[in-house]
C-alpha cells in the first residue's frame, strides 16, 4: 500500500509533464519547461531521499528506510530524462558539442558528475550488487550526498539574477549534510562510549 503511494507520488510530476506536452500546456517554450521541470523534480526527490532516514528517526517509523531505493531510482529516472532533454533540445544530439560544453561550462560538469554518481548508484541498487560489494556498497551510496552538493552548485550556477530558489535548495542540502554528519557522530559516540 505504502509502496503504491510512493511510486504514485513519484510518478505524478512525470505524468503531468507528459500530459502537458501532448496537450500543449507547457507554455510557449515546452522544451525549456521539460528541461527545467525534470531538473527541479530530480532535486526535489533527491532531497526526499536524504530526508527519509531523518523522518524515519523522528517518527520512530523505520519502515520508511525501505523506500529509499524506490525514490532513489525515481531520482535517477528524472535525472536521466533531464540529461536527455538537455542533449535533445539544447544540443540537438550534436555530441561533439557535448564534449565542448563539458569542457567549457562548469554548471554542465557539475550536473554531469551528479548524474554519473546516480548512474553508479542505480546500477548497484540490486541485491546482487549489495552482496558483491559488501562494505564498499555503503561507501558508494554515501556519495548521494556528493550528488546533492553537485546538484546544488549546478543549480546556483544556472541563475542569472534571482538567487531565491537556488539558494534555498543549496541551504537545504547543507542542512541535510550537516544533519547526517551529526547523526553519524552521535552513533559513533554512543557505540564507543
Amino acid at each position, binding site marked *: 500500500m505504502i509502496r503504491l503511494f510512493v511510486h504514485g507520488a513519484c510518478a505524478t510530476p512525470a505524468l503531468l509533464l507528459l500530459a502537458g506536452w501532448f496537450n500543449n500546456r507547457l507554455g*510557449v517554450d515546452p522544451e525549456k519547461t521539460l528541461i527545467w521541470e525534470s531538473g527541479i523534480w530530480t532535486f526535489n526527490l533527491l532531497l526526499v531521499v536524504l530526508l527519509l532516514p531523518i523522518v524515519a528517526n523522528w517518527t520512530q517509523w523505520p519502515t520508511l528506510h525501505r523506500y529509499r531505493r524506490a525514490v532513489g531510482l525515481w531520482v535517477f529516472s528524472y535525472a536521466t530524462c533531464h540529461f536527455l532533454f538537455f542533449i535533445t533540445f539544447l544540443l540537438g544530439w550534436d555530441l561533439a558539442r557535448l564534449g*565542448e560544453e563539458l569542457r567549457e561550462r562548469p*554548471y554542465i560538469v557539475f550536473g554531469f558528475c551528479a548524474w554519473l554518481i546516480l548512474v553508479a548508484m542505480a546500477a548497484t541498487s540490486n541485491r546482487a550488487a549489495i552482496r558483491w560489494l559488501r562494505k564498499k556498497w555503503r561507501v558508494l551510496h554515501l556519495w548521494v550526498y556528493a550528488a546533492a552538493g553537485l546538484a546544488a552548485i549546478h543549480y546556483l550556477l544556472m541563475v542569472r*539574477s534571482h538567487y531565491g530558489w537556488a539558494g534555498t535548495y543549496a541551504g537545504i542540502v547543507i542542512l541535510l549534510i550537516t544533519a547526517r554528519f551529526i547523526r553519524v557522530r552521535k552513533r559513533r559516540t554512543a557505540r564507543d562510549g
Partner: protein
Amino acid sequence: MVRVTDQSVYKRRKFIAGALGLAALGSFSTLRYRGRMSARAAQAPSDELTIEEPAPSTSDHSPINLAERRITTKYAATHYNNAYEFGWNKSDPAQRSGDFQMRPWTVTIDGLCHRPGTFDVDDLMGTPFNQLEERIYDFRCVEAWSMVIPYNGRPLRDILAAVEPMGSARYVAFTSVLRPEEMPGQASLFSSLEWPYVEALTLQEAMHPLAFATFGVYGDRQLPQNGMPFRITLPWKYGFKSTKFIVRITFTEEQPPATWNLTNPREYGWYSNVYPDIDHPRWSQATERRIWGEGDITRMPSRPYNGYADAVAHLYLGEKKQYR
C-alpha cells in the same frame, strides 16, 4: 503591407538606393524633411523642430517594404518575456503586470543636448499610433532564443536629433521606470539586479537607422510585458540592450553604466553585440532556438550582429572582443 529589415532586403535596398540616387541628384531637397515634436514641459518649448536627415551613406540602412515574412505568433511574443521588473519567470511579465500604469507617461531627455525637456510619450510618437512605421525585426535574446516580431515606432534618431545633441555628447543613457509598487520584480528581495534598469549606447549606435524607438508590437500598445509604453529595439544586439519602460534619456560624454554589465561584467559586455563565436561563459551563442509559436521551435545557427552585419559592422572596427 509590412515593413521589414533583413539581409536580403538590405542588398536590394543598396540597388534601389543606387538607382534612386541617380534620379534624386536633381532634387536633393527631397532628402530633407521637417519633423515635428511638441514638448509639454514649460522649460522646453521645442514645439517645432527641424530635423535634418544625415547624409545618406552606403552603410545607411533603412527598412523598406517587402512581401510577407513569417513572424512569431503574438501569443508567444507576449507570453514569453524577460522583464525582470515583473519577475524572472518568462510568464511573469504577462501575468504580473496587471497593476502597471501606462498613462500618463513622460520621458525626460536631458544631458548634453540643446533642447532638453520632458515629453509626453504620445508626443514622442510624432504621429497617431496607428500611423507609426511597422518593422519586422529578428530579436535575439542572450539566452540563445529568438523571435521575429513586428514593432511599431519610429527611428530613434528622429527623437534624438530633435533635441539637438551637443558636439560633446558621445553616449546616450537610457533609464527605465522605478515603480516597485506596480512591478513585483523590483520589490523582490532576491534579485541581484539594481533598480531602475539602466542601459546605454554610443551616440553613433543610437543614431543608427536600425535603432528603433518602439511604442507597440503587433499593432498593440497595451503590452507592458514587451516594454511598453516606450522602449527601444536594437536588433543587432542581445535583447537586454533594448531597454524597456524608458522614462529618461541622457546624453553624456563618459560611458554610462549598464545594468547587466554592472551585475556580471564577465558574462555581459557593455556593447553586447550578437557574436555567435563569442560564447557566454555559461552557454554557447553559436546556435539559437527560434520560437515561432507555442511549442513551435527550430534550432538554427546564429549570425554575426544577428543578421544585420551589412548594416552595422562598420560601427565596430578592430578586435571584435571589445564589442562583445
